């Protein structure tokens, strides 16, 4: 009944009419009071007044609801604008604009040290290749941890693998970028991430081979050759972008050390060395993670272990 009226009487408006909840509460309160008044025996004429009053109240409640609704719409619009601004993955889109041929070429190039260090070498600021290499390294690490029956206390296998690989990639990149900033090298953060990421290709190859074939000396050969090649490439590129002997030395020394030591760490921390070789070569030094001797159910590693023991005896 109050719906047809087009007149808004603002006399009854008070300050709290912005919230429709309070209006509803007041409406209920008034209705209860009016019922009590009716129960006391008011005349029938009071009913019409009540009806009109309810109509006014209903109108005011409606206005309050309108305002609340508009505030909700405005808030929602602002929230979706903020979301589309910050959660926009299009910011990263240019870094993923690659062709498979380019990725393959860059993977192979990461093992070839450049000769020209007087001329700044071009680094592609691309993130697809490095990201895929980090995930591949995680998968290889998982494989190595499983076959060596490593037990991780206070954590999970997957969490440790992801944490190690991503921590290395992001952390060492940031640290090297900071050092490069101190040493006035011409390199951006994305380029640093890309360079270090492609350097992990050597790590992937080495670990993939040596987690399956447990020869100690084979690992050292791979460490020197493959790790060394990718380190030389990264170092050469950095040197070409830095001036000054001290700065070059600092940057390249740090990068080479971190890169090679990471490979060493990955091999020894997450991979069971054959028991016989451990006893003969390394003595009482215990590896950092606790190891529990278990049966290794896989046939292939049993065969390889016996051959490795045979070779250890001959060494």
């Amino acid at each position, binding site marked *: 009944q109050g719906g047809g009226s087009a007149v808004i009487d603002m006399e009854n408006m008070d300050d709290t009419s912005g919230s429709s909840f309070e209006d509803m509460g007041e409406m209920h309160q008034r209705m209860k009071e009016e019922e009590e008044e009716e129960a006391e025996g008011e005349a029938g004429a009071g009913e019409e007044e009540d009806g009109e009053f309810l109509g006014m109240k209903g109108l005011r409640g*409606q*206005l309050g609801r309108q305002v609340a609704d508009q505030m909700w719409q405005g808030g929602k619009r602002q929230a979706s604008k903020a979301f589309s601004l910050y959660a926009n993955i299009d910011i990263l889109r240019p870094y993923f604009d690659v062709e498979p041929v380019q990725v393959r070429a860059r993977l192979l190039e990461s093992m070839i040290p450049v000769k020209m260090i007087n001329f700044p070498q071009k680094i592609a600021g691309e993130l697809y290749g490095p990201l895929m290499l980090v995930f591949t390294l995680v998968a290889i690490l998982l494989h190595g941890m499983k076959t060596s029956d490593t037990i*991780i206390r206070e954590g999970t296998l*997957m969490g440790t693998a992801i944490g190690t690989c991503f921590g290395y990639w992001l952390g060492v990149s940031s640290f090297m970028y900071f050092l490069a900033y101190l040493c006035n090298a011409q390199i951006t953060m994305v380029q640093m991430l890309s360079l270090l990421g492609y350097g992990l290709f050597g790590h992937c190859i080495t670990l993939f081979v040596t987690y399956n074939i447990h020869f100690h000396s084979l690992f050292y050969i791979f460490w020197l050759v493959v790790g060394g090649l990718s380190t030389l490439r990264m170092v050469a590129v950095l040197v070409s972008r830095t001036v000054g002997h001290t700065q070059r030395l600092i940057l390249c020394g740090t990068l080479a050390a971190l890169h090679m030591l990471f490979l060493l760490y990955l091999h020894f921390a997450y991979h069971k060395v054959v028991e016989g070789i451990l006893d003969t070569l390394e003595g009482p030094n215990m590896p950092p993670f606790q190891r*529990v001797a278990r049966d290794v159910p896989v046939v292939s590693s049993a065969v390889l272990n016996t051959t490795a023991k045979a070779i250890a005896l001959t060494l």
Partner: protein
Amino acid sequence: FPGLADVSISQDIPVEGEITVPVGSHSPDEDYSTLDEPVKDTIMRDLKAVGKKFVHVMYPRKSSALLRDWDLWGPLVLCVSLALMLQGGSADSKDDGGPQFAEVFVIIWFGAVVITLNSKLLGGTISFFQSLCVLGYCVLPLTVAMLVCRLVLLVGAGTISFIIRLIVVVAMFGWSTLASTAFLADSQPPNRKALVVYPIFLFYFVISWMILTFTPQ
């Protein structure tokens, strides 16, 4: 209208819109009808949709049913059943053995999100949830492989059982990868299919590895 002279409206509240009290709900007819149907009908309809998608995964044809009406019920059921079956792994120490339940869950969903973001960044035309739906449904062959592995391990745990399990898991891994590639690769520009397929390959490889290395007590 005697009261109009006193009307003073503050400027910052735009007084516009309908001044009518809505009578009852004005929901369209479809809402009304699905709200009132018996629960059995709703459940059966959803189950049929999920079942149809399972069939599409097992026999991957070029159909768009998986993509058009995506739902995440199937992936949830598959993920939970795979995580449950991977429990009870060999554990002579109390705190580690097979992967934890939460680990499997996080791997599957996080991996699917990463692959989806990757395919979107490479210029894919498929939406976020459609891709999640496809990747989740394509875990079905690997769940079947897990079931078979558990049955084989009940019989024995020797070399022959390992070879059988290896063959089954590799076959199912190939099936999963092919099925999801059939659905997802179409949405990519033609020369970049390899870039999208590789992360899918890695994702199913990690899940297959978890299944293959599962050893019960």
